[in-house]
């Protein structure tokens, strides 16, 4: 038998421990204390100050221009993050294969759009549907049975990694490593207010934000959305209160994989379709998930967009080659200083 102290007791004994976590020690400083009490306001204040400083230093025009570019990546991060965070929150599964769901979606769109010559809208719908189906199939074949057997963290982590490799390299096996292009016009730009943005980027921002808004409303107001959040909050409690959890889990996979498929098509449209596509987006998506607080869908949505913009703005100071490093840096700093994210609550950690 193992002795495990209750979470609440553990929290109370924290200050007495010799190896007091850094964030606990930091919390004793007054401004940090205030920030810890209201992390959203603190984050908003930091970002606000950052934006003002940028505008003063670099000019409104340039800041808005790069911010706009950042929004399209932000929309992709947010779309990827919202599904990843729900799966993480509900199933306690760190789905390393989520990035490869994006790749899968992009290739499904490529098949319809290029191989079969179909219209892009149809390709997007097909990609969403088939990726959602993949998510459900994997739940039925792999994750459900493993949960029933009481698999541990390491087992699930390594299975997710194995799955990621299988998806990625089956795609590479079938399509090769060539960079492929969806049928989008990447040279046309839209100009307004003195800003210029690629038409594809604009479509990604437009459609992305509509979908993200719909997602937010769905989670906030529909019964399914409420159930998903209830499961993410506490699966046993949700089950006790009469929610058909296995059904909601299936819907969660439909939603998570489907949104990943859409994110993948967008990612393929603004860059190129290639087997590493989703993997390159995975760590920024993880950063958005952690920043938003694991399991917190709204947090993931907001953090994804913030991250996309901030990463783009970071190119004012650093070589663009390093800009993805900013995502990793944010991820590590947030994990260390505030692992529950700016939208999460301490007890989720």
């Amino acid at each position: 038998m193992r002795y495990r102290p209750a979470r609440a007791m553990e929290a109370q004994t924290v200050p007495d421990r010799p190896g007091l976590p850094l964030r606990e020690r930091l919390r004793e400083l007054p401004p940090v204390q205030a920030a810890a009490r209201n992390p959203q306001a603190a984050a908003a204040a930091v970002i606000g100050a950052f934006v003002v400083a940028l505008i003063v230093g670099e000019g409104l025009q340039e800041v808005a221009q790069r911010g706009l570019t950042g929004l399209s990546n932000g929309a992709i991060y947010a779309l990827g993050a919202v599904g990843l965070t729900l799966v993480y929150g509900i199933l306690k599964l760190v789905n390393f294969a989520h990035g490869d769901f994006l790749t899968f979606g992009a290739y499904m769109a490529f098949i319809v759009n290029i191989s079969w010559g179909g219209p892009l809208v149809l390709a997007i719908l097909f990609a969403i549907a088939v990726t959602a189906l993949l998510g459900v199939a994997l739940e039925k074949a792999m994750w459900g049975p493993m949960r029933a057997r009481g698999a541990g963290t390491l087992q699930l982590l390594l299975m997710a990694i194995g799955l990621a490799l299988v998806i990625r390299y089956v795609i590479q096996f079938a399509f090769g490593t060539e960079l492929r292009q969806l049928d989008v016009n990447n040279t046309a730009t839209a100009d307004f207010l003195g800003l210029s943005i690629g038409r594809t980027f604009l479509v990604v921002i437009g459609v992305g934000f509509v979908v993200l808004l719909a997602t937010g409303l769905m989670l906030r107001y529909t019964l399914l959305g409420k159930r998903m959040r209830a499961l993410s909050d506490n699966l046993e409690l949700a089950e006790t209160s009469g929610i058909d959890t296995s059904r909601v889990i299936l819907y969660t996979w439909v939603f998570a994989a489907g949104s990943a498929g859409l994110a993948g098509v967008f990612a393929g449209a603004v860059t190129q379709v290639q087997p590493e596509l989703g993997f390159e987006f995975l760590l920024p998506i993880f950063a958005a998930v952690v920043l938003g607080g694991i399991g917190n869908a709204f947090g993931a949505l907001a953090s994804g967009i913030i991250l996309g913009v901030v990463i783009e703005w970071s190119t004012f100071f650093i070589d663009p080659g390093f800009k993805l490093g900013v995502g990793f840096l944010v991820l590590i700093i947030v994990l260390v200083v505030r692992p529950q994210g700016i939208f999460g609550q301490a007890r989720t950690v």
Partner: protein
Amino acid sequence: MTELLPTLPLAIDLEAFASLGFWTGVGILAGTYTIFALGLQINVGFTGIFNFGQAGFMAIGAYSMAILVTDAELSFWLALPIAILITIAFGLLIGLPALRLRTDYLAIATIAAAEALRLFALNARDLTGGAQGIFGFDNDWDDVSDSILSGLESLGWTNPETLFPLFLVVWGVAIVLIIALTALQKTPWGRVLRAVREDEDAARALGKNAFAYKLQSLAIAAALGAIAGFFLALNLRFIIPDEFLPIFTFLGYAVLVLGGLASYWGVAVGSIVFWTLFEGLRFLELPFDEVQIRALQFIVLGLVLILLMAFRPQGMFGKRQEMVLGD
């Protein structure tokens, strides 16, 4: 052979498969990844910390060594211990904040740290040569290699395999490390490590500084990663950022779980089995092109991970009761 046996697509190119060149190559890779995965073993198997950044440690070790030799013009033999120390310092730097995290967060944090490093290596061209990488750091090794080769010739082996000295040295080092680590595991220090794995709170209640033990475990893994990095660099004769993708950490995990958790000798066997399978795939007479064979290798890697975790999570030599699979 393909033309002779068109109806047998799964025939093995026996000639290539039986050649000493093939086995020397496989042996070097297996030895390198044995050392690499020994680090994962002490972390995952004996301390219960999920280090997913081992490829990052390998990168720091290999790059520090190469930069010290080519830029600072240090002797290769002096560069090795310094590179190990640099890697340990990085391990402590990452471990100090990250080891306080919950297991799954630690996995994400370490993989992000390793990727950040790879990205740095890719972009800091002045220091690391960017995507072209670094070469020309192995002259001192070549002298040793040549003298081993002439030694082999004097023993009566005409025309020995040029990479055979590396094979001998990598396995010599791997076996010494396995013996040392196995002995270390039997000391009181090793027993505390296991206690931390089993129940950190209980270890702490007994007055053991669990965090310090975890940090020491990570430092040892970093050092082992660096040593694996040296052999990787000597085998390739150059280093490029692509050799340190997270996928190589996952490969290390496949080696680890194939051999079994909490067994250092198991790592060596797991590595030999894995690399024989992995490289042997290239000699199956399959009707695929090179990219497809490469993809097939990684599909097999993924399947090994999935199937082992689903059906035999303790691996070949692991003991089920020695596993901490839960939180």
